[in-house]
């Protein structure tokens, strides 16, 4: 692990440890009361979910069209993180909705397309685990479709009728709610960068192990 990674990891861990105090200091929301505070972890998780999908898509493009084989390691790393942050988003969202909307789930455009994106990356991981040779390119194609879904998810709340808050919530947040939100976004972004680099490193090392075994067979 490089020095910059250690510094980032310590910083992210410290920020996560202090996050409950920041969130506790935030005021209640007029109609939703206390439960809206799920937003401070739900929204950064959702952003990291979409960021991971875009990262996987960009790396897939590099693998498929620019013929960069090492890009495959970044696709795998980002796809796994898309599943992790996707799970955070899809679990915390219904917990918030149960109180705010009275139901756990609605089949609107935002929720359905988010679930589809999550399933695309679960499919990617299954394909890579059981797909055998050639699954890297098939998986990269799948990840490109995942990335294409991202803008649709983002704007869906502004075009289709839904209970879900629109994208205008973030820029219009009062300062006392905005500070804990941006604090949590920074903590999640730091954690995302660290985890992505560590997960990609795991793939680099696995490739090295494979090369060492091949060299051993040749001897």
């Amino acid at each position, binding site marked *: 692990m490089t020095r910059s990674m250690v510094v980032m990891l310590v910083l992210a861990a410290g920020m996560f440890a202090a996050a409950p105090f920041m969130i506790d200091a935030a005021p209640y929301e007029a109609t939703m009361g206390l*439960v809206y*505070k799920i937003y401070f*972890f739900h929204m950064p998780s959702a952003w990291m979910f979409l960021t991971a999908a875009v990262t996987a898509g960009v790396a897939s493009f590099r693998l498929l069209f620019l013929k960069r084989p090492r890009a495959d390691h970044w696709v795998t790393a980002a796809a796994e993180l898309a599943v992790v942050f996707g799970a*955070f988003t899809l679990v915390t969202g219904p917990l918030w909705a149960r109180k705010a909307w009275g139901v756990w789930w609605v089949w609107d455009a935002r929720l359905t397309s988010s679930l589809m994106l999550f399933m695309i990356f679960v499919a990617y991981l299954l394909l890579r685990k059981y797909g055998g040779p050639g699954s890297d390119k098939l998986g990269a194609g799948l990840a490109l479709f995942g990335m294409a879904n991202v803008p649709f998810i983002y704007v869906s709340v502004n075009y289709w009728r839904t209970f879900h808050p629109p994208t205008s919530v973030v820029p219009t947040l009062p300062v006392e709610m905005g500070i804990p939100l941006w604090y949590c976004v920074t903590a999640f972004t730091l954690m995302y960068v660290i*985890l992505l680099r560590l997960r990609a490193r*795991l793939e680099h*090392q696995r490739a090295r*192990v494979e090369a*060492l075994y091949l*060299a051993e067979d040749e001897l």
Partner: protein
Amino acid sequence: MRLRILVMSIVLLGATGAFAQSKQPPPDFVPVENAPPGEQIPAMPLLGAAYGFIWVGMLGYVWSLARRLHQVEAEITELESRKR
């Protein structure tokens, strides 16, 4: 004659309906302005579950990643020592 019978029937039906409505039992579902306190969904368990899930999930993922990295690096060390 027919018209008189028809008018009388209509008046009789209306009177019966009005009588029946005035004698209706109270409704089973009674509306109230606010939900009774015991029936409201408490926010705290939902909030705790959401934050708990992310904390446990994050720690679990970091632990799993560290374990996998440790395993693969141990394998590299072993393979390189065998090579020498």
